[in-house]
């Protein structure tokens, strides 16, 4: 069965690779936003040097890593969840259920394929642009890059697991658009996409860092910036893996409850 899910990952990748114009437009958008946020951060760090413990170069690196991961983490849509919700609402999900493949495994594989493409197609170029325009604090050590890659991979699983729960909500809600938008806003805020979580004041910062969304940007960025290194970096990965396991288990549980409702939609 492993071969099958691997094949789904590959198809998920190729599927998004077919939309070249959309990818180019996305790269352009990420780069423009990266520039805008960079200049805002420069102004901010000028007033408050070492905000959140970052130097200006580290803050700018954080901005571009954020832009590079935005699409891969499906922070503003583009993931599988809207498609899954459509299938639930139309009753087409029944087709997915009688096949000898697991619903969660199938969508996870497809979404990892998508994330891998978005990472390459929409992640690399903006970060390279950022590195050309600004002085970024990118590490030289291949080990750090390897840890960063692991942190990103675990982050995409956490991102999937949250969105799988969102997608399943369509079994109860006739229109899931509201939930999806709420997830975006909460995700953008608590992942640290708007402002690094370590710049959040007091308890809010501590809580935000403990929530699963931090796995989508704050944790990978801190691993790359070597704010978390050595044993602490491994602890960061364990934190992500823990949330991934909990959220995937929750999704599995909810899937069991939800599939008993199949018939309600689509007769």
């Amino acid at each position, binding site marked *: 069965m492993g*071969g*099958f899910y691997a*094949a*789904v990952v590959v*198809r998920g990748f*190729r*599927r998004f690779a*077919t*939309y070249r114009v959309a990818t180019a437009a996305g790269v352009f958008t990420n780069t423009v936003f990266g520039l805008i946020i960079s200049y805002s951060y420069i102004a901010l760090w000028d007033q408050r040097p070492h905000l959140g413990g970052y130097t200006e170069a580290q803050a700018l690196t954080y901005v571009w890593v954020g832009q590079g991961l935005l699409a891969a983490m499906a922070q503003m849509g583009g993931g599988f969840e809207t498609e899954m919700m459509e299938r639930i609402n*139309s*009753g*087409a999900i*029944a*087709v997915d*259920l*009688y*096949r*000898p*493949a697991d619903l969660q495994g199938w969508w996870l594989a497809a979404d990892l394929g998508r994330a891998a493409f978005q990472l390459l197609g929409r992640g690399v170029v903006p970060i390279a642009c950022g590195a050309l325009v600004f002085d970024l604090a990118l590490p030289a050590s291949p080990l750090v890059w390897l840890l960063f890659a692991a942190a990103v991979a675990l982050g995409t699983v956490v991102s999937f697991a949250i969105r799988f729960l969102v997608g399943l909500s369509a079994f109860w809600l006739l229109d899931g658009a509201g939930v999806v938008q709420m997830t975006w806003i909460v995700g953008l805020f608590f992942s640290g996409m708007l402002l690094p979580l370590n710049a959040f004041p007091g308890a809010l910062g501590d809580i935000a860092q403990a929530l699963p969304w931090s796995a989508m940007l704050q944790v990978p960025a801190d691993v790359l910036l070597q704010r978390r290194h050595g044993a602490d970096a491994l602890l960061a990965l364990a934190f992500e893996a823990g949330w991934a396991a909990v959220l995937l288990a929750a999704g599995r549980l909810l899937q069991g409850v939800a*599939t008993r409702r*199949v*018939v*309600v939609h*689509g*007769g």
Partner: protein
Amino acid sequence: MTQSGEPMIAVEDVEKVFDVRRKAAGRLRRERHRVRAVDGLSFTVPRGEMVGYIGPNGAGKSTTIKMLTGILTPSGGRVLVAGIDPSRDRARLSRRIGVVFGQRTTLWWDLPLRDSYQLVRRMYRIEDARYARNLAACVELLDLGPLLDVPVRQLSLGQRMRGDIAAALLHDPEVLYLDEPTIGLDVVSKAKVRGFLRTVNAERGTTVLLTTHDLTDIETLCSRVMVIDHGRLMYDGGLDGLHAAGDSERTLVVDFARELPPVEVPGARWVRSEGPRQWLAFPAGDSAAPLVAALAARHPLVDLSVREPAIEDVIARMYGAA
């Protein structure tokens, strides 16, 4: 494996009850309604048979098919498909059945047809030789050759439907459920799909359960038809028997030599007149010969013809009676 004597599909006193909560008008509390989608259904389908399963919308057809695939668990009674209890052992059953929903697709929208088939091959772990053989057969019979490398989103409805049917057959299912496989297709595509299904049934001995609103599908493919309404089986038998069961009538159209007042003949009922032509209805089971003889004895006839009842009318009458 089922023994050859055992039926491929056995449904015994099956019930499916849904609790539907509905907001009562002007009240905050929601009321519970119990809906009996399937109510004491029993039938068997022997291996290799092709059966039509028809009924009006909401009759319980889809609910039955969902129970036969294991997606739904019956509230009562027993279901066995290929000797397997579908809701208990859905994964094992899924390798032995194929399902096509006319209005839904299993194909991967953004990728070529070939990619979806590759996924099916891995999902069902089909051996290479068997996969190649089955794909070649489907490609030939369904004219899929030029379509294999076209992304599914660019296919027409008829092409997509053919693609979906092929996807459901690559793993050699013993049972095939088809839910409205010809819906929305043009005449040529419908004929192609029907021809293919007939071949699959004849050559591979695949047991087929076909749900449709297009009675031509049934007339061209199935020797047996089951009619369901309000979750109960209203009729189970040959197509011919439907006429008798539905109290249907044949029509005798008579052209007299001149305009006449409505004629009265025993065994027939005057329906309408148009100049010298009159329409007389008589039970579908009776012979037209004595009727014609009686008419000819009384009035000079110019021409006559007998019209068979349309199967649509027969079934509409049956639905109406339930």
